[in-house]
């Protein structure tokens, strides 16, 4: 590789020597010390001698024909090495996309959303690149904008994508629908007649941003073989690779990807951002190119959570049993498909929530519009549905005249319950129990803001440091919610991972190395891999090799799947390594002790031991200078696609359940909210690392809080332009907005999963939002069918 010597920030092996502990123990992160000393290199920290800076010129309008692009003035500037447009793309393939290759690498003839990349610049300084980009002249001829269901599905609507030939087009009623999924089970129409109470609701879910803190960034280094080395922050290296290589016109082996430090992801790094752009510029200039988005650009650089309109009808008998549910979920996919089809699958199949409902009539659709593209974000379609069905549950419980939690418990799913898709839930589903646990918790004390002399500590009140109330207008409310999230990739996707595990002797000690392509995005996957290796191989020292494309795919760090699938792959490869090690042992020592042939043998504490605890051999002596290395794929049980018309099919592999109780205080006059406590209970099957599990639950809970009370990308409905692309106006919770989050972790093993574990990263994001909304409704008496709730909604202004 050319110039590798002067690349700084390339990840290296991370070795954990002093941090013993197998699965089930709260071992500390292998990268923790690097991260607290500032030495951990994120993708934006990559640096190379003589590197250039890449800059992206983005569309200033949402929907327009590109009449002309003039790059001459930009190219003539000192310090500018390249200016690229669509015409400069080197290969036949000029598009990319997760499910549908509908996204141009650079806009071609037309821009479909505000902020779409149109041209690229490489220059010797970021400011030079910015000035050059500003000199590129683009003439647009604006087109009408499609911004919602009505404008998208009008008979004479402008088509966002003309000439579609993707696999979904034949099932949709209008070309501005990316994908739709109906699900019919039982007879909702007939069952509705038996309902004593029916509630209908129309709900709106705002566009949420992942707002990971580490901006999209990376470094592309051209190599002597005409290929490129790409250091980047992503969620799935191999998926990126499959999209990058064809556009560069290179075989995959000439695009060598290495995962740089990832500053959070939450779904926002599923899609390509700057990867292809940096490679194009590097290959064109022959120089390393670094691209780092600033926060403004980051809001245009990745997809967001689908905003949604949800129409629900539920019925119940007078003794509180659910009779039926009808719903239509309309997701705004924006200008490009991204993960919209899969989001539709999740939203529809999980639209009934964790409840027993035998008669359902469901439809979910995703639209093409000229709004910002939407795709993966933590909770992935299940979040929007949970917000709506949990509001419905409260309304229906009130109508029936039951306690809201008891009503949920009465209708709660259990092991064996059929989903709307007809698929039985085949592992524990402790829905009633997690509700019981959050309800049983003592409530936090009232008026905790009061300090001596009748004064108030405003930090404990709505408005916080802004000093808006000293207790005036403040009313407390309590709300509950529960949700269900699928784990892993569903609908027949071949969801596998690969792990390469090596065992060898270094300095007289048997040690292990784990190499996967799993994107560590903060979740603690590498911590768990080291724990699994210790548990399975009986070693102390484990080295984590950097994630790259020199090993098979690990699948995405999403869908709550990595501990399950790549964890499973690491476990599997460790078991295979163990078998080989034992073979060596049998060969060497088999004749000395009968246990080699008869007993179940384990690797523990650096030794081969019998299940009775007798030590048979020291691993270091057994191995000597032999190295045992296995790379193997591992997959979870297969799933099938949902029927396109009825939605029936065993599409999911596992589920995750969380419940929340929110306690809020609302300044009812000013419409300001302070969340006082967000108690949660979740079944995780088996907590491989309890400290990390609790951290995931608290983090996910807080993202749910954010979209309940403050987070929304605001798009102007007239122009489809984003109005708040900055951290000044897209607000995420600060430490003063975030309450105490007590966590109750249940461990009911799923017999089908490695160690009985349950993927758990997303579920807490589901129920947190509706719980906060329910608590605000409880405090104010308002209906509140939209999230996030704004002061205007609470004050009727």
């Amino acid at each position, binding site marked *: 590789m050319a110039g590798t010597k002067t690349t700084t920030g390339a990840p290296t092996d991370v070795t954990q020597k002093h941090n013993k502990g197998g699965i089930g123990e709260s071992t500390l992160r292998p990268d923790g010390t690097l991260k607290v000393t500032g030495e951990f290199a994120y993708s934006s920290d990559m640096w190379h001698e003589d590197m250039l800076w890449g800059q992206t010129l983005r569309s200033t309008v949402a929907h327009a024909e590109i009449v002309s692009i003039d790059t001459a003035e930009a190219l003539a500037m000192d310090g500018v090495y390249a200016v690229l447009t669509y015409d400069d793309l080197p290969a036949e393939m000029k598009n990319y996309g997760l499910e549908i290759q509908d996204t141009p690498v650079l806009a071609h003839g037309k821009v479909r959303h505000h902020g779409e990349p149109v041209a690229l610049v490489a220059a010797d300084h970021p400011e030079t690149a*910015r000035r050059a980009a*500003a000199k590129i002249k683009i003439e647009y001829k604006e087109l009408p904008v499609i911004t919602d269901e009505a404008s998208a599905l009008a008979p004479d609507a402008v088509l966002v994508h003309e000439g579609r030939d993707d696999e979904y087009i034949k099932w949709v009623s209008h070309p501005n629908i990316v994908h739709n999924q109906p699900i019919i089970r039982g007879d909702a129409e007939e069952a509705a007649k038996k309902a004593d109470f029916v509630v209908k609701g129309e709900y709106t879910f705002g566009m949420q941003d992942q707002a990971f803190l580490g901006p999209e960034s990376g470094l592309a280094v051209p190599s002597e073989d005409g290929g490129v080395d790409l250091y980047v922050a992503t969620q799935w290296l191999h998926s990126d690779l499959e999209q990058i290589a064809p556009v560069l016109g290179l075989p995959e082996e000439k695009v060598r990807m290495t995962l740089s430090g990832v500053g959070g992801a939450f779904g926002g790094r599923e899609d390509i951002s700057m990867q292809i752009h940096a490679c194009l510029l590097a290959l064109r200039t022959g120089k390393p190119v670094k691209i780092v988005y*600033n926060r*403004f650009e980051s809001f245009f650089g990745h997809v967001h959570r689908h905003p949604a309109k949800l129409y629900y009808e539920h019925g119940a008998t007078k003794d509180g049993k659910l009779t039926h549910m009808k719903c239509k979920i309309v997701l705004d996919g924006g200008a490009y498909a991204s993960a919209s089809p899969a989001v539709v699958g999740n939203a529809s199949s999980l639209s009934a929530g964790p409840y027993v409902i035998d008669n359902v009539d469901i439809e979910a659709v995703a639209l093409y519009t000229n709004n910002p593209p939407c795709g993966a974000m933590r909770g992935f379609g299940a979040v929007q549905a949970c917000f709506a069905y949990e509001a419905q549950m409260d309304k229906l419980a009130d109508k029936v005249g039951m306690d809201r939690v008891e009503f949920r418990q009465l209708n709660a799913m259990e092991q064996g319950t059929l989903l709307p898709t007809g698929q039985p839930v085949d592992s524990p589903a402790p829905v009633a129990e997690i509700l019981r646990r959050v309800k049983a918790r003592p409530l936090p004390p009232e008026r905790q803001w009061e300090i001596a002399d009748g*004064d*108030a*500590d*405003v*930090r404990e009140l*709505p*408005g*916080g*440091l*802004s*000093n*808006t*109330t*000293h207790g*005036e*207008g403040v009313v407390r409310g309590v709300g509950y919610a529960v949700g269900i999230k699928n784990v892993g990739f569903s609908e027949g996707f071949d969801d596998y991972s690969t792990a390469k595990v090596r065992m060898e002797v270094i300095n007289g000690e048997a040690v292990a190395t784990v190499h996967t392509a799993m994107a560590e995005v903060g979740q603690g996957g590498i911590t768990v891999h080291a724990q699994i290796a210790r548990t399975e191989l009986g070693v102390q020292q484990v080295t984590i090799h950097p994630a790259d494309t020199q090993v098979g795919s690990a699948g995405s760090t999403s869908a709550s799947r990595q501990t399950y699938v790549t964890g499973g792959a690491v476990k599997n490869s460790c078991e295979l390594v163990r078998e080989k090690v034992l073979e060596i042992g049998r060969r060497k020592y088999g004749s000395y002790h009968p246990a080699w042939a008869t007993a179940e043998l384990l690797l523990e504490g650096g030794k081969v031991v019998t299940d009775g605890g007798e030590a048979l051999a020291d691993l270091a002596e057994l191995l000597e200078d032999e190295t045992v290395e296995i790379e193997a794929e591992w997959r979870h049980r297969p799933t099938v696609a949902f029927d396109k018309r009825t939605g029936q099919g065993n599409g999911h592999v596992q589920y995750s359940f969380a419940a929340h109780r929110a306690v809020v205080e609302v300044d009812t*006059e*000013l*419409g*300001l909210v*302070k969340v006082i406590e967000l108690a949660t209970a979740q079944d995780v099957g088996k907590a491989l690392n309890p400290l990390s599990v609790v951290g995931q639950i608290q983090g996910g809970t807080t993202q749910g809080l954010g979209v309940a*009370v*403050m987070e929304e990308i*605001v798009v102007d409905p007239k122009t489809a332009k984003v*109005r*708040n692309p*900055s951290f*000044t*106006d897209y*607000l995420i*919770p*600060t*430490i*003063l*907005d975030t309450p105490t989050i007590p966590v109750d972790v249940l461990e009911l093993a799923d017999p089908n999963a490695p160690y009985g574990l349950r993927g758990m990263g997303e579920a807490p994001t589901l129920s947190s939002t509706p719980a906060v909304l329910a608590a605000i409704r409880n405090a104010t008496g308002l209906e509140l069918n939209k999230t996030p709730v*704004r*002061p*205007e909604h609470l*004050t009727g*202004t």
Partner: protein
Amino acid sequence: MDFLRPASWEEALAAKAEHPTAVPIAGGTDVMVEINFDHRRPEYLLDLNRVTELQDWHVGAETVQLGASVPYTKIMENLRAELPGLALASHTVASPQIRNRGGVGGNLGTASPAGDAHPALLAADCEVEVESQARGTRLIPIDAFYTGVKRNALEPDELIKSVHIKKADGPQQYSKVGTRNAMVIAVCAFGIALHPETRTVRTGIGSAAPTPIRAKAAEEFLNAALEEGGFWDNGKIITPSVAKQFAELCSGAANPIDDVRGTANYRKHAVGIMARRTLGWTWESYRSGKGRGAEGAA
């Protein structure tokens, strides 16, 4: 872009005289955001960090002379008794890191209606001391300082040196609405200062009109009502109807817009609520003789 680094106030004035388009930078909390996001490319940046007198304050008999670059943190820590309203406003500015850098000079120079200091300065009453090399010093009354959206009474060759703020002679309060409990730009803000010596009340409203404004009709109404009812002497609780009327007049003084941070209607509503509450807090503090009113707000 050129970076001018005057070592003294005189040098700074000379630089500004020579380059009237130079953009002064002190805390950097506005200017650097604009530069980082490519919203602004000034020809000259005029760094005021080395002009030490801008970091100083002097407490006199009647007024506090507050250097333009005194960080908000210092105002909170050192001037809570003399400038309680401004100290409270300072505490609502962004984050600790920003409060360590930013000062009132930046708020005044930018003259954004959302600047947190403005309502407190309007309510306390003050004069802005500006200076040019050519014409020397002049004092601009705060009421004449804000001339339009992000515009002020400064001439191109002038720099803001300090603010002469009346020392509190009575309780002052400050409230700001934002949609987050910390680190938030004002949706709208309200400042109030009781001036028992002159038996007047002054107000300031932020983010609810093209410029920071006072609610003059509300002030006049309240001054008359307090006088009429002998409230300054008898220390009685202000009649709810008077407080209500005051709040409505404050609300009516606002002339806000709809934007991504809030609606015009909400802003008018919230100004009224804040006016009523802060009047209650300051008056309660006045009548119970509990000092100058900054307490109770952490």
